[in-house]
C-alpha cells in the first residue's frame, strides 16, 4: 500500500513501469529513500566533496542529530567538521556566519526553526544583507537548516512556520522541500550556493519514504533553486503548496480524480525566489487556483501568491478568486483534537476545489 501511495506521489503508474520494463529498455532503478536519509546523504556527499563544508548545531555530532538527520556523520568526519554547540543560538549562528565570511561553508542547524528567532538578527542583518551592503565585496556562503512548522503535540512555542518571515527578506534564498528528491537535491544546491540559504525541513516528513530516481541518486544531483515542480498534471484546477501539504494536495487530487476532477499539483520547492512563472502557466491552463500552507494566513505564502497573481497576466485567466487554505490564525494548541483542527486537512482542500469550481 505504501509502495502504491508513493508511486502515486511520484506521479507514475505502477503498471506503466512494469509495461515499460517488458517492452522497452530497462527502466531506471528506483529506490525508496526517506527524507531523513536523503538529507543525511546530501550532507555526507557535500562534506566529502568540499573540505570547507562543516556542520554545527545542538546534538548534531555525538547524538547523531536530535532527529537523527546527521546520523553517522560525526563518526565519519570527526570533531573538526561536525561540531556540537552549547544551547546558544545567537552566539553559534553568529559564529557560523563569521566563519562563512572568512572562507568556510558552514551548515548551521537549528533544532527547530522556532529557536532561530533567537538568532534571527545574525541571519538577517549579518548574513542576508552583507553582500548588498558591501557592494559584493563580502560573501556569506551559509546554510541554515532545521525542521520548520508544526509537528505533533509540541504546542505553541514549538510549532511556528517561518516560511513567510524568511521569505520576506531580500538577500536570502528560502527553500522548502517536500519529497526525498527535493530534500537531497535542494540541500546540495543550498550548500553549493555562495549565498545565505534558509532550508526549511519538516519533522513529520523525516520518516516518509519516497521513490528516488537513479539520476537523483548521483553525487552530482542538484535541484535548481527557484524552480517549482509540477508533481501532478491536471486540467481543472491548480493546487499550489510547499513542504508537507504537497502530500495533502496529492491525496486530495487522488480523491477528486475519482469524481473526474483532474487537479494540477505544484510543489513550490522554493519560497524565495518564488516561481510565479510555473504557477501562472498552470493557471492560464486551469483558470482556478487554490494555495495550501501550514503557516498562518496573515502576510503568508498564499497571500503573496494571491497578490502576485493579481498583479500579473494570470489574473485575466482566473474564473474564480484564489482560495488560500492555511493554518488557523491562532497559536498552536496542544490537545490532539484542537491541533488537528488548527491545520489544513485534506477535506479542506477538497472543499476549496469544489468551491472554486462552483460544484
Amino acid at each position, binding site marked *: 500500500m505504501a509502495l502504491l501511495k508513493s508511486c502515486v506521489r511520484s506521479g507514475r503508474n505502477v503498471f506503466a513501469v512494469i509495461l515499460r520494463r517488458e517492452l522497452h529498455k530497462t527502466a531506471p532503478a528506483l529506490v525508496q529513500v526517506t527524507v531523513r536519509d536523503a538529507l543525511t546523504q546530501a550532507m555526507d556527499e557535500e562534506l566529502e566533496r568540499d573540505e570547507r563544508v562543516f556542520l554545527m548545531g545542538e546534538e548534531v555530532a555525538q547524538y547523531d542529530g536530535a532527529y537523527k538527520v546527521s546520523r553517522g556523520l560525526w563518526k565519519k568526519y570527526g570533531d573538526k567538521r561536525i561540531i556540537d554547540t552549547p544551547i546558544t543560538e545567537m552566539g553559534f549562528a553568529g559564529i557560523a556566519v563569521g566563519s562563512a565570511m572568512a572562507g568556510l561553508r558552514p551548515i548551521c542547524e537549528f533544532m527547530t526553526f522556532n529557536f532561530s528567532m533567537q538568532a534571527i*538578527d545574525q541571519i538577517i542583518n549579518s548574513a542576508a544583507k552583507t553582500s548588498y551592503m558591501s*557592494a559584493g565585496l563580502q560573501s556569506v556562503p551559509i546554510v541554515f537548516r532545521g525542521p520548520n512548522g508544526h509537528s505533533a503535540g509540541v504546542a505553541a512555542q514549538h510549532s511556528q512556520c517561518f516560511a513567510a518571515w524568511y521569505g520576506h527578506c531580500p538577500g536570502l534564498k528560502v527553500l522548502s522541500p517536500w519529497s526525498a528528491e527535493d530534500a537531497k537535491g535542494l540541500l546540495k544546491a543550498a550548500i553549493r550556493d555562495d549565498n545565505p540559504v534558509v532550508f526549511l525541513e519538516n519533522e513529520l516528513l523525516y520518516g516518509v519514504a519516497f521513490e528516488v530516481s537513479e539520476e537523483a541518486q548521483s553525487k552530482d544531483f542538484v535541484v535548481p533553486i527557484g524552480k517549482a515542480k509540477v508533481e501532478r498534471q491536471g486540467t481543472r484546477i491548480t493546487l499550489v503548496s510547499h513542504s508537507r501539504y504537497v502530500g495533502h494536495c496529492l491525496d486530495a487530487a487522488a480523491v477528486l480524480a475519482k469524481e473526474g476532477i483532474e487537479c494540477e499539483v505544484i510543489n513550490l520547492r522554493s519560497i524565495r525566489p518564488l516561481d510565479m512563472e510555473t504557477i501562472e502557466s498552470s493557471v492560464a491552463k486551469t483558470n482556478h487556483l487554490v494555495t495550501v500552507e501550514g503557516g498562518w494566513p496573515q502576510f503568508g505564502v498564499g497571500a503573496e501568491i494571491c497578490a502576485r497573481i493579481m*498583479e500579473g497576466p494570470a489574473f485575466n485567466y482566473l474564473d474564480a478568486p484564489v482560495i488560500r487554505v492555511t493554518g488557523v490564525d491562532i497559536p498552536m494548541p496542544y490537545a490532539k483534537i484542537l491541533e488537528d483542527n488548527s491545520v489544513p486537512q485534506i477535506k479542506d482542500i477538497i472543499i476549496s476545489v469544489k468551491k472554486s469550481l462552483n460544484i
Partner: protein
Amino acid sequence: MLLSVNSMQKMLTIISNVLKGSASKNGAASEVARVVAARTYADFTAEATFDVKKCDTHRLDDAPPTKSVLTREDALKYYRTMQVIRRMELKADQLYKQKIIRGFCHLSDGQEACAVGIEAGIKPTDHLITSYRAHGYTYTRGVSAREILAELTGRRGGCAKGKGGSMHMYANNFYGGNGIVGAQVPLGAGVALACKYLDTDQVCATLYGDGAANQGQIFEAYNMASLWKLPCIFICENNKYAMGTSVERSSASTEYYKRGDFIPGLRVDGMDILCVKEATKYAADLCRAGKGPIVMELQTYRYHGHSMSDPGVSYRTREEIQEVRSKSDPISLLKDRMLANNMASVEELKEIDVQVRKEIEEAAQFATTDPEPPLEELCNHIFYNDAPLEVRGTLPWTKLKSIS
C-alpha cells in the same frame, strides 16, 4: 672644547629650529635653515625604548612588556596614520554639518591609538572586525581616506560603491563596520574558528565597546571561543560612555577585562599607542600559540559625542573632555615622545601635518564631486556569484535587474 655627538646633534637641531623659526619672516634665512635641517635628518635617533604602563591582568601569570622599542621609521608611520585618522574624522564632522554626509556618523577622534596600536601588534594577514565606529579601522586595514570619505558621502567611488555608508565598510581581512551592537562579536569568533579550521596561524581581533560589553551574545561567544580554544582577541574599547550612559550606570562590573571570567584578560592604556601595540602583540602571540582566546580592555576616550546627532556634553562636562585632550591626547603623547628623544624634528612633523591635511582635502574634494551611484545599479549585489535576477520595483510592473 670636545662636544659629544649627542650634544652636537642637539645643537644643530636648536640652530635649525631657530633658523626655521625666522624663515617665515626672512626669506633668505629659509634656504640656510633647510640645508641645516636636511643635515640633521641623518642624525636623528634611529630607535628608542620607552616605558609603557603595566597592564592590569586577569588570570595571567605574566603580562605584556613594560618597555617598548620604537624605531624612527615606525614612529613616523604611526604619527602619520593617527593624524590621517584624526583629520579624516574632523573632515567627516565638517561634511556632516554641511549636510553632505547623512544618516549615522560615529567618529573616533581621541581613539586613534587603539586602531593604530592594534594594527601595529597584528599582521596584515590577521583579521579584524569592529562596531559602527569603524572609520579608523577601515583606514588601518587598507582602505584609502578618499574611498572612506566617498562612502560617507554616498558616491560611486566609495569603498562600498555608496551602498553601505558609515557603518558598512569592508576590506580584505576586515569584516566591517557592523550596525547592530554586539553582533560583530560572535562573527569575530567565527572568523577565528575559520583561522583554526584552515590551520593558519592567523588571529582575529574582535572589537566592541563598553556599551556592547553587556550583550548576552558576547558571553555566548566567550563560552564557545574558550571551549574550542579559538584564536580570538576580544577587545573592549572602553571610552567610558555608551551613547549617553556612563559605564557606572550601565554595568554592574566595569572591569571589562575580567568579564570573560574563565578567559584571561588585560587592561591597557588605550591612549598610549605603544602600550596598545605591546598588549596586542602579547595577545596575538598567546592566540597563535593555541592558548586563546583572550580579552583586552583598552581604556580610551572619544572627543565627539556618540554620533553626529549627539553634542556629547549633556552627560559629561566640557572640562572632562578638555582635560583628556590636554593630558592624554594619543597623537600629542607620541609626538612629545618623538621630540623629546630626537626621533624627529618639529618641522618634519609639521611637514607631515601639511601633507596629511592635503591628502584629506583632496579626499574630501573627491568625495564631494564624485557622482552618486547610478540608478541602474540599485539592485546589484543582492547575491554573490549568482545569475542575474529580476527584482520588483516600487510598482508591480517595474522589473528591475540585479547582477552579482
